[in-house]
Structure formats: C-alpha cells, structure tokens
C-alpha cells in the first residue's frame, strides 16, 4: 500500500484573531496532481505555505514523507524536498538566472559549482530558456521568469511541487508556455499541489480538484466530476462564476 506523501491532520491557522485555516484534514498521494481552487481569501495560499511550514501553524500537524513538520528540527532539510513557485516569481533580482538556480543546490546540498551548473543547464533546457541563463531576472519576460523560477524549484530534485497561482501575474500570451512546463512535470509523475484559476489545466491535467472556502475544504473530487457534477452548492456557484468569466 502506498502512503500519502502529504498528510494534513486537523490543521488550523490564525492570523491574530482571524481564522485562515479551520481544522483541515486532507492527504495527497505521491504522483498525483491536485488543483486547489476557491474564492479569494479562502486560505489557498495559507494552506500551501503550511505544507512547507512557511507559516507557523497553531494546531494540528502536517506529515510530509513520514516526518512531522511540527516537531521537525531540520525544517530546512525538509523544505529542500519541496519546491515552491510563486505568483510573482520571486527570483533573486541581483543574481543571474543561472545563479538563481544553483544557489540552493550549492549551499543547501553542498554540491560544487560545476556540478550545480551542469544540472541547472539541463533544467533550463527542460523549461526551454537555456539561452537566458546568464541574464538577470528583470531582463526576462514574465513567462521566462516563471519558467526560471520553476527550474529553481526543481533544482533540489523535490518530491513535491507547490504552485501558488503561477500564471496569475502573466500576460495571456505567456500563460500557456508556463502551463506547458507544468503539464510536462505532471506527466512525468511529479506530485503537485497547484493553486490556480486555470480551469482548463484543472480539467485536463489535474487528477483531483480541492475546493476551499472560508478556511475549510468544502469538496474534493476527481477533476472530471468536479466540473461536470460538483457536490456542493458553493462549488457549483464558484465554477459558474469562473467559467462565465472566460
């Protein structure tokens, strides 16, 4: 029997008095691609940030690959096994694309520079921006920056990739190049949690969809079912609203 890669147990998160995540329990199997959606402020980003403990959650726990994050002393080591991609890329502006990618492998995993660069080379090729390796982030288009950020997250060979609205800040013509990279990742068996409003990606690529509202998981469904036959009224409303917009 396969064990879940991520197991979230009774997780709650507050910002001051505001409850951002309300007693969430859910788990994710290795090799699956799960899209997380829901209205603005429903806690999607907060949930992702709990999965690599970028937020100090109050109660509950996240078990990643058998390790409890709450009691983990080597959180940095665990994080290096979880790649994360952000809405606004968050590339380091003072480093070239190459150095953005090799920074963590060199200083977290202690890989020497040549080896790290050889690896980065392959990753850049994979995301299709090898020719941009020596440029600075600001010299790249949004789509290229996001692909560089994906390469950076992949450089530590993570077991899990977290995407927080990776295409929301992109001009429409650049969205597909990023989605293409993500589709390839999913096809190659990467475990992925993706917060996105790209319903096409959710339907075609994701195995499952998780729908959140007001800090709770309202519905979890196979992606086909979610769109054709949502269980909850709130999900129904949400789908209508999102699809209307398109």
């Amino acid at each position: 029997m396969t064990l879940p890669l991520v197991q979230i147990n009774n997780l709650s998160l507050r910002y001051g008095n505001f409850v951002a995540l309300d007693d969430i329990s859910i788990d994710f199997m290795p090799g699956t691609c799960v899209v997380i959606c829901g209205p603005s402020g429903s806690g999607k980003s907060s949930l992702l940030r709990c999965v690599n403990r970028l937020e100090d959650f109050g109660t509950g726990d996240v078990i990643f690959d058998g390790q409890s994050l709450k009691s983990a002393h080597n959180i940095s080591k665990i994080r290096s096994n979880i790649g994360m991609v952000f809405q606004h890329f968050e590339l380091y502006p003072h480093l070239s694309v190459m150095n953005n990618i090799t920074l963590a492998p060199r200083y977290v995993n202690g890989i020497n520079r040549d080896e790290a660069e050889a690896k980065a080379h392959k990753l850049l090729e994979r995301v299709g921006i090898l020719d941009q390796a020596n440029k600075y982030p600001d010299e790249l288009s949004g789509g290229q920056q996001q692909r560089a950020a994906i390469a950076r997250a992949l450089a530590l060979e993570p077991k899990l990739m977290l995407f927080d609205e990776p295409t929301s800040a992109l001009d429409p013509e650049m969205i597909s190049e990023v989605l293409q990279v993500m589709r390839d990742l999913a096809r190659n068996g990467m475990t992925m949690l993706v917060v996105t409003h790209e319903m096409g990606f959710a339907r075609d690529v994701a195995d499952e969809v998780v729908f959140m509202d007001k800090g709770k998981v309202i519905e979890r469904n196979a992606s086909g079912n979610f769109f054709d036959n949502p269980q909850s009224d709130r999900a129904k409303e949400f789908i209508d609203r999102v699809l209307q917009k398109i």
Partner: protein
Amino acid sequence: MNYEFDWSLLLEEPNWSWVIEGIANTIQLSLVAWGCALVLGVLIGAIRMSKSRTLRFIGTTYVEIFRNIPLLVQLFLWFFVFPLLLPDDLMRAWNRLDGVPFLTALIGLSLFTAARIAEQIRSGISSIPKGQFLAAYSTGLTEVQTFRHVIIPYAFRVMIPAIASEFLTIFKNSALTLTIGVAEVTGAAKTIEAYTFRGIEAYSAASLTYMLTTASVVIFMGWLEHALRIPGLIGKR
C-alpha cells in the same frame, strides 16, 4: 581686509609633515572605522530583523543608545571613562598601547556609525518583498544563509547611496576626534595655526582636503552603484 596670504608656509617643515600626517590619519581612521561600522552595522541590522525577540531587543537597544548619544560625548566616554572601568591590569596595558587616541577614535566612530548603518539596513531590508524570504526559505536555505546570500546582497545594492553618504559622514565626523588628541586633518590645521598664527591658510588647506576627498568618494560610489546595479532596480543597461 588686509591679510597677506602665505601659502608656502604650508610646504615648510614641520608644517608639511603635519599636513600629510593629518590627511593620512583622517583617511585611515575614516576607512577603517567605516569598514568596521559596515560589518557591525550589517550584523546588528540583521539581528534586528531576526525571529528571536531577545536578539531583536539587543539590536534595538544598541541602535537607540549609540544613535542618540552625541558623538562627541561618546568619544569622551570612550577616552576618559571607559579605561577606568577596565580591570587594573587591562587598564595599564591599554594605557601603554601606542596611539590610544587613534584607537579610541576608531572604536567611538565605528560603534556610532554602526548604529546608523544598522538603522539603514533595517529600512533597506524592510523594503525587500516578503516573497524573497519565502522563496529562499522554500528552497531550504536557513535564516542565516537567506540573509547572507539573498537579503543582504539585495538590500546592499538598494542601499549603496545611503552607505556612501555614511562614509562621507564618518569622514566629516572624524574631525571631532581632534578633541581627544588625534592628529587628523583638522587637528593638524590647529597645530599649524598654533605655531605659525596662519589659521586661514591652515584651515583652507584642511577644507580643501575634505572637499577633494568628498568629491572622489562621490565619483567612486557613482561608479560602484553602476557596477552593482540590479537591472530594473537601479537604472537600466
């Protein structure tokens, strides 16, 4: 005004040696103090951003104390009071050192300027998007590594103008150290005046030194800013 200028007297011995010694001392003092202040200021600035409440408290206390006591008072404290607080053996060893005024001036200027730099580091760091921290932490970098490789280099580039102006400040502040007997430029001018009654020439020479050095620093920092600029943050290629 009926004053006959006699610039040549500056070139006569021992005046010339005093001028040279003064310039050398000023530059040496400013550069070393600035270097120390930069290192210490970065450390304290980082401490003030730390997650640990104790560390933050230490950092804030340091900044508030050293920034708010006038530099002149601090120099006097270091020169006259600090040695008295040392154990007897240490105090004797300290007094026997060569160049106690210079060392005292170095300590005083460094600690004072470190507080100012720490404050600038903090505001520089606060201007860095939170996502940069999240990105660095998410790749497994520790807090120290994140500051060392991501936050400080980024903040440093944003802060070059402020740090350059801190050097100019330290350079001008070094004139205060004549009060504890450091023979820097202003001190040298004072000595020359005392021996020759030629205050105007002596102080003009001192002013010229400050102006020339300030100009070279401004030019150098302009170059540095250009060389280290982050595309998109400070001007484009």
